[in-house]
């Protein structure tokens, strides 16, 4: 892995959560790459063997993911891998960087040709490379402490299954002891010399590990299986002593973090989860001590000039504008209002035609005899129609009803006044019935002659 300048975005965010298992990271980019350098050191050929560019590591992760997720029979071509990386990121991948890294991956056997012959362009991923990325994940989450847990767990596993001989047990115990001793020495150094934030970062990596339980369980297994074996007893005791030393320095680290962090009121001493756990589970007396010497003001609203003038400038009163609900879609049901209007128009038209028929083109006509001949109730219908036309101001008709009363007991129309129909030059004006038509009522009223004049 060639050197390249450390590449971070302008916002200072960690690039692509490199080394993150499930996207969660407890170490910074710098710490992760430092851990990687220490991790690779046993097999490195020079000090520049490990890149200092987090983008390089992210590209390796993306390439591995493409091979794992988009694998096809016969492998993938370089172009297909590039397209897969671009699709995963959602933006175009740096072509030059991709070409350079893919060439290196091929040289270091991370990607292997599908067929071992010249000029073939399809590749597969070496499983060892993917395993290496998983190790990087663990270095990114807990800085390598997980390796200690894995070592202890593996030692217990082989002992429980009886798949290891005495020499193998001794080797396992020694490996665990050495790792614990190194961690203990590192913690001792950090407690004595490291700045608070560095100590806090290191201390967090050792959280949530039951190393003490694992060591004691391993010790019991050794004692049970290899009874009265002084050498193994000695190795197991050495492991316990190493664990005690490790735990002692870890507690010293915690004490220093709490003392210095507490005095400086640095709330980053605890993680949000720890605050929540304390709030739920801690005793009331302990919680009441929190902030005992911290002075606070009552939580009054903060007033600043900018917010005040912004409220003045931007205020617009809320007006509730009532909007009609949307009209329902056209249904198959007939519109009763429209039907009434059509009927009204048809009736009016019929009356007008009847009146015109009576006038026969003249401007006025005497209708008394017509009414008499129409009988009853015909005369009533004719008269009613004529009265409607007379009362309608939009119709150019007027009906004059005389005061004289004509009585004929023998006729079908016994009582009759002289009736004369006149055509007017123009309608008298808007009809009140027209206005009422919009609400579907007919407000026409027959008007008598004395009222008209």
């Amino acid at each position: 892995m060639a050197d390249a300048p450390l590449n971070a975005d302008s916002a200072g965010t960690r690039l692509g959560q490199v080394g993150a298992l499930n996207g969660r990271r407890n170490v910074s980019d710098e710490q992760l790459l430092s851990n990687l350098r220490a991790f690779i050191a046993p097999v490195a050929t020079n000090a520049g063997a490990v890149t200092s560019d987090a983008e390089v590591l992210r590209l390796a992760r993306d390439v591995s993911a493409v091979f794992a997720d988009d694998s096809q029979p016969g492998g993938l071509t370089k172009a297909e891998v590039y397209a897969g990386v671009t699709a995963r990121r959602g933006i175009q991948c740096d072509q030059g960087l991709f070409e350079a890294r893919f060439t290196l991956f091929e040289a270091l056997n991370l990607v292997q040709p599908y067929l071992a012959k010249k000029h073939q362009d399809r590749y597969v991923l070496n499983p060892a490379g993917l395993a290496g990325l998983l190790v990087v994940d663990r270095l990114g989450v807990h800085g390598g402490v997980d390796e200690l847990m894995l070592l202890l767990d593996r030692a217990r596993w082989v002992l429980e299954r009886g798949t290891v001989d005495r020499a193998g047990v001794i080797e396992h115990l020694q490996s665990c002891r050495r790792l614990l001793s190194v961690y203990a020495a590192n913690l001792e150094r950090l407690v004595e010399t490291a700045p608070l934030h560095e100590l806090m970062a290191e201390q967090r990596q050792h959280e949530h590990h039951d190393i003490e339980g694992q060591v004691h369980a391993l010790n019991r297994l050794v004692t049970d299986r290899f009874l009265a074996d002084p050498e193994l007893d000695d190795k197991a005791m050495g492991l316990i002593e190493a664990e005690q030393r490790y735990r002692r320095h870890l507690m010293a680290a915690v004490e220093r973090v709490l003392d210095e962090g507490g005095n400086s009121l640095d709330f980053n001493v605890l993680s949000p989860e720890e605050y929540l756990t304390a709030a739920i589970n801690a005793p009331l007396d302990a919680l009441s001590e929190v902030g005992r010497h911290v002075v606070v003001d009552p939580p009054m609203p903060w007033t600043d000039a900018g917010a005040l003038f912004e409220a003045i400038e931007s205020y617009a009163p809320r007006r509730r504008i009532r909007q009609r609900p949307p009209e329902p879609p056209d249904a198959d049901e007939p519109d009763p209002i429209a039907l009434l209007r059509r009927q009204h128009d048809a009736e009016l038209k019929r009356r007008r035609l009847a009146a015109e028929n009576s006038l026969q083109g003249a401007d006025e006509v005497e209708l008394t005899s017509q009414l008499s001949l129409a009988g009853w109730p015909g005369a009533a219908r004719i008269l009613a129609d004529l009265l409607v036309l007379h009362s309608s101001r939009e119709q150019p008709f007027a009906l004059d009803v005389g005061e004289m009363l004509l009585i004929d007991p023998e006729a079908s129309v016994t009582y009759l006044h002289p009736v004369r129909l006149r055509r007017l030059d123009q309608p008298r004006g808007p009809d009140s019935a027209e206005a009422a038509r919009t609400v579907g009522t007919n407000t026409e009223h027959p008007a008598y002659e004395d009222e008209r004049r």
Partner: protein
Amino acid sequence: MNSSGMPTQRQAAVLLARIRAEGATAREVASTAVLAAAEQAAAHAGRQVVGCVAPVKAVPAGPSRAFRPALVLGWADGMAPSPEDDLGYQVRRFSTTQALAWAACLGLAWIDRSASPYPGEPFRGEDVVDLLADVGVPSTWVKAALNHDLPLAGLVASEGEWLRLGPAAAALPDVTVEALRRFHDRLPHPVGLAGRGHPTGVPHSNGTRASEEDAEW
């Protein structure tokens, strides 16, 4: 040590705690020595003890709150926080109508731009309601702000039928006052002062005129 038996430093701490808890504390509860010690302690924390006139009680069983010289906790020069600039923490803020009510109170009380806004002129609640009704603010919301939100924050204090700027207005940071002064003309103002119908300087219940001199001690 003094007649109460408590060390002066301890009394100064109690005084500062009392001011924080009450919003404003009567000046007469603390001796000059205790006040000096409290000022010194406040300065260490970037605060300062500001004199004002506020409706406070001198003793717990004393008479109803009357305007008297009082103490409120303000910010030392250059030490006021600016949560509007620093997005690292959230603070509670007024709603739009509460802010408008406060702006209207400022506009009615702070007539002379060149002078300090506090103590300002007394004003009536209905003037605030009328002023904001012109811009469409519902009167119920304005009254709620005048009767509850602004007095609770110490920005407005009631003196009978009149209102005045409260002790929190006396403790406004200088930078806030300067910003308000710069845009003083944008504060809601009534059209002409003739219709306000109140004399300048409404007398306090103790008979002294409300003026900046009352705030000095």
